[in-house]
């Protein structure tokens, strides 16, 4: 995203910023930036109907700049489209004040954003991040197993599932072995053709010949290796130059399942880490893993959940010397302004206390993991017990192995 113009008063947070989205991912940033009550000015196409003196109605579509006070936003992850609904706040000759309009933000079309209640620190941080063009890592990943492949695009801030490929593969059985092999062959070819369609090598290559997007293949067992082998033979057989060029950038990794959530496991594997350590998602994964490890130790240093984290921050436990607040950007997108303010305040308090704040993208796997923990978690500088209110006695429940069956009986 390009910042064309900004007039933001650092003290009060008033002012506006004019932005030009250039990549699909910028829509995601815009989605995170635009809040209800914000003022958004962008180019819009609106159908205007006029009633002439004679009573005949003529209607025509005109392009005009509209400023709306945002009431809701809608983001389509798959297509990367952002629809912002609101009421018109600046009247012009065609559109009356207070009439409703939904702006469709488009690529390469500038928009101006003015925060309803000022640019807070989180918003400014987001703006900075959105306009940071230096780190634009992209990665295609195929997480697969026999008969199932998830093709996804991992960008700096998003993990987008592009396509799920499911091909029935007969299992091995006596006398029916070719069924399995044939099924796998079909699965590979379907996956490859789907992948190529998404990679769009033909179009991408002329523009950015210097940049090849790495492709990550991950699977349990040997499926990924076999698939790579298949790609290789296909590339040589069809002498597909683009595909051949892609081959050196293919990484093969191990995942324990074909599901998307095993991407976090893939990204935290040492081999992948070494290659992608500087990217945001790799870091996020890293933090998440650290947090989980601490949580497992159960020594009172890792807490999750809004209430618990709130309390921990109150007690100043998320401070200098290792205190980390992990928070998902989903919380800042809260439609409720008060809710958002609460989280912004939390973040600011941690920052003041010298703690580290990581804002996780809710679209990444790490963000999803955080989401299941209540979107916010904290690593404390010192252990705190009993942050959860209604704690009961929990001794005596930790040694014996019991069978699920017995519990039922």
């Amino acid at each position, binding site marked *: 995203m390009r910042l064309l113009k900004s007039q933001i008063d650092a003290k009060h947070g008033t002012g506006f910023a004019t932005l030009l989205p250039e990549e699909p991912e910028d829509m995601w940033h815009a989605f995170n930036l635009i809040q209800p009550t914000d003022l958004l000015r962008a180019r819009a196409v609106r159908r205007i109907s006029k009633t002439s003196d004679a009573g005949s109605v003529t209607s025509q579509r005109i392009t005009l700049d509209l400023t709306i006070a945002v009431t809701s936003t809608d983001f389509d992850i798959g297509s990367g489209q952002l629809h912002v609904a609101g009421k018109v706040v600046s009247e012009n000759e065609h559109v009356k004040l207070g009439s409703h309009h939904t702006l469709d933000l488009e690529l390469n079309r500038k928009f101006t954003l003015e925060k309803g209640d000022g640019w807070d620190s989180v918003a400014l941080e987001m703006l900075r991040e959105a306009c940071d063009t230096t780190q634009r890592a992209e990665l295609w990943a195929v997480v697969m197993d026999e008969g199932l492949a998830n093709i996804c695009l991992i960008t700096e801030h998003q993990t987008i599932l592009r396509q799920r490929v499911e091909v029935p593969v007969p299992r091995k059985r*006596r006398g029916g072995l070719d069924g399995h092999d044939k099924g796998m062959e079909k699965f590979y070819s379907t996956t490859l053709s789907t992948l190529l369609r998404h990679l769009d090598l033909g179009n991408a290559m002329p523009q950015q010949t210097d940049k090849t997007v790495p492709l990550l293949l991950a699977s349990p067992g040997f499926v990924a290796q076999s698939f790579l082998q298949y790609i290789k033979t296909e590339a040589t057989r069809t002498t597909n130059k683009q595909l051949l060029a892609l081959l050196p950038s293919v990484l093969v990794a191990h995942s324990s399942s074909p599901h998307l959530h095993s991407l976090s496991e893939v990204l935290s594997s040492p081999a992948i880490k070494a290659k992608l350590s500087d990217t945001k998602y790799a870091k996020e994964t890293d933090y998440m893993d650290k947090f989980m490890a601490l949580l497992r130790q159960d020594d009172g240093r890792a807490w999750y959940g809004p209430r618990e984290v709130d309390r921990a921050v109150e007690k100043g436990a998320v401070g200098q010397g290792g205190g980390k607040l992990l928070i998902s950007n989903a919380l800042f997108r809260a439609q409720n302004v008060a809710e958002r303010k609460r989280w912004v305040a939390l973040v600011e308090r941690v920052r003041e206390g010298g703690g580290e704040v990581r804002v996780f993208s809710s679209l990444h796997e790490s963000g999803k993991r955080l989401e299941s923990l209540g979107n916010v978690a904290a690593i404390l500088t010192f252990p705190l017990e009993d942050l959860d209110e209604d704690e009961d006695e929990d001794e005596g*429940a930790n040694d014996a192995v019991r069978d699920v069956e017995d519990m039922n009986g």
Partner: protein
Amino acid sequence: MPPKSGHQRAKNIDYDEDDIYGDDDYYEEDGYEMTDQDREQMRIGTIKVKEALGSSLMVSDAQVQDALWDNYYDVGKSVADLKKKLKPAQPKLAPKAQPPRTSSRFDQAANAVKLDIKGKQTQSHSPLFMVQELSCTAPILASSVLSHQDDPMPLQLRTNASKGCADYPLSSPVTMTHHYDSFSVKDFFCDTPWCNVPPHRVGRILVEPCFPKGGLLGGSSKTSKLAALAAARKKKQEEEKAMAASLNKLSETQTEADAAVALLDRLSVKEKDGVSNAGLRGGGEISEPRLSLSRYPIRKKSSTPPPVPIELKVEIPSEPLKVVETPTLRTGPSAFASVLCGIGSTTSERRTIGPSRFPIPYTNFPGFANAKPFAKPSPDDVVIRAQAKGAKPKPAQSKKANEEKLAQSIDKLAMDESPKLKSKNLNVMEEFERSGMKRMANFIVIGHVDHGKSTLMGRLLYDLKVIDQRSVDKLRKEAETIGKSSFALAWVMDQTSEERSRGITVDIATNHFETDKTRFTILDAPGHKDFIPNMIAGASQADFAILVIDASTNSFESGLKGQTKEHALLVRSMGVQRLVVAVNKMDTVSWSHDRFEEISQQMTAFLTTANFSEKSITFIPCAGLTGENVAQKVEDTNASWYTGKTLIEALDSSEPAKRNIGKPLRLTIGDVFRGGITNPLSISGRIDAGAVQIADSILAMPSNETATVKAIEIENEPVDWAVAGQIPTLHLTDIDPIHLRLGDIVCDPNDPVKLIKSFSCKILAFEHVMPMSVDVFRGRLQAEGKIKELVAVLGKGKGEVVKKKPKIIKPAEAARVVIELSRELPLEAGVRVVLREGGSTVAAGLIEE
């Protein structure tokens, strides 16, 4: 005989003749052939002769060819010969119409001997020779001849036979001779009471069945080596005798023939048999009268014996193969053979059955003529009629006139709905009880990777003769070629190329075997941790488990940290109660008792904490690679301390599993595949509950599509129904394969499984459980889900709430959690699930609602 050689071609030619005579290719197969030129001449000649003869005379190709051969392809002469030959034959049809019908084998044998003797007498040869031969080689036969002499049947036989002999003098044999003889062949076999024959002789005859083509007399390459040897020896003897006999009488030409034979003998080993026969023929033609009957008549048309030897002499040096090509060269069976078959001439004549005259079995029984096989409706008709009756919709009958309209409409409805497949409407429960089926058990073989699960199962199947030696040898050879000879037995189970090249099992392999008590289905699980999903799929089908443990140093210990532990926990949490622990590779620790005890103790300690009861665990030391204590007791002296059961015995002592037959149908799809051209869509999987029969309508969830069961197979055998606990293959119709996925549930349309997106579940944690993404496994079903809420930690015994809303659940704690799935799935209360995350099993659970 190398393929595509001249011999092969000769063989092909011979088949034509076989078609006509139904004869053995005894002579022909022995490697004689015509040159191409000859063949072409023969072919053209045959056509011409046939044309010349027209349709007035029934003459076979072979006869024509024989005639041509005799006349050196002179068409004119051959026609003349044939006419001459066939004319007198015609009237003789009638007397032959009454072949002897019923006679015991011995009778026939006796008769045959008499025939021989008589024949010899007519040929003014001393019968002594034959009798002597018989008495030395077949005393039983000889005595039987004597004992049955006053029996009327043989007498009749004899008269018939002698008539035949009289009617068809050697010099003018005709086709009818064949007919006659073919009758006698039939006679010989028709009612033979094999059971009365002394066992040693029956054995021989079965080994070399007297089919027209059989090479009993030593000609066929298919003869067993032993038989061939014996035959050769006999032949030699006979030849010598024949030579000796002929010495007295034979002219110089015959000795010349012998010389030629000797020459041929030297030519090739292969041809030896045939040549010796040729020699026999040349020398023994006159001396052995039974030959005259068996011989092809046309060839013998040259009334004086000398020409034949001359022919031999002329041809052998240049084209020895030609000689044997002619059927005249056949000799009588050796003494050995005649003993084997109990008869001389008839035995050989038996081989002259033409296909047109192939005797219909049992026609000689008196009941045959009376039997009217098509008088009654065929069994098929009966069945169809019965089905038609049964299929009549009952409602129509039961309704009275006042409800006739309704009845009719119902009738119509029923017609419309009637499936293409007729249901037998079996009461499967009753059928099952009535069938008194053997106990069935499915067991899963689990254990750490490379502990020898597949090899042990390969050995088991091999020792139980489910896999034959040949396939094992083949596998062994294949394994050796890629340098993995020790994997040969494992390859019995591991069949995909990937599994073989990597040397590990990837997917569950199923196989079946049977002991006296039980029918077992093996589910061989992969040990590698990446393939635990497959192992779970297998474990969900198992009634009990074999835990394979590598006894060698360090392997056991590393396994205990790895999949030995995980698998054991998994099978336990999936409801497997009984465990057979096979302490494998005992040979590598030289059957050390201490090691076995050590492993047993450690495992018992571990397994009891995993809630296996101690008495349901059996420890068996064994060695899968060598097969000790798998099916056979161990013989190693070091293992003398072990006196317990073998692995098989341990398996056999397992308790049968309880079956939920009465409940509505639930089948987890374990595989969707194309079962063949006739069955384009098949599924397989274990029936968890209920029963299914052919023509049942089933509902696949979550696609909510119905299908019809076209056929059911269990262990590759078609059956009419299947019940819970079995792993059938269902061939389906009326459904698209995209609606069937692995892990889907097939259920009764009247009692479908509900689809749920989120459920509460009691879990036993193996790892720390917190709100997180997990893979939910249920048999083959593998779904994304997440633990949404930790509701409570539960108490040990009664399941009381110990702590509400815990932050984290520690390993070995029981808890109640809420799981949300990424898509709706057919899961029911009481279903066991396994939760995994990041390659390790997090928890096992039981769905509550």
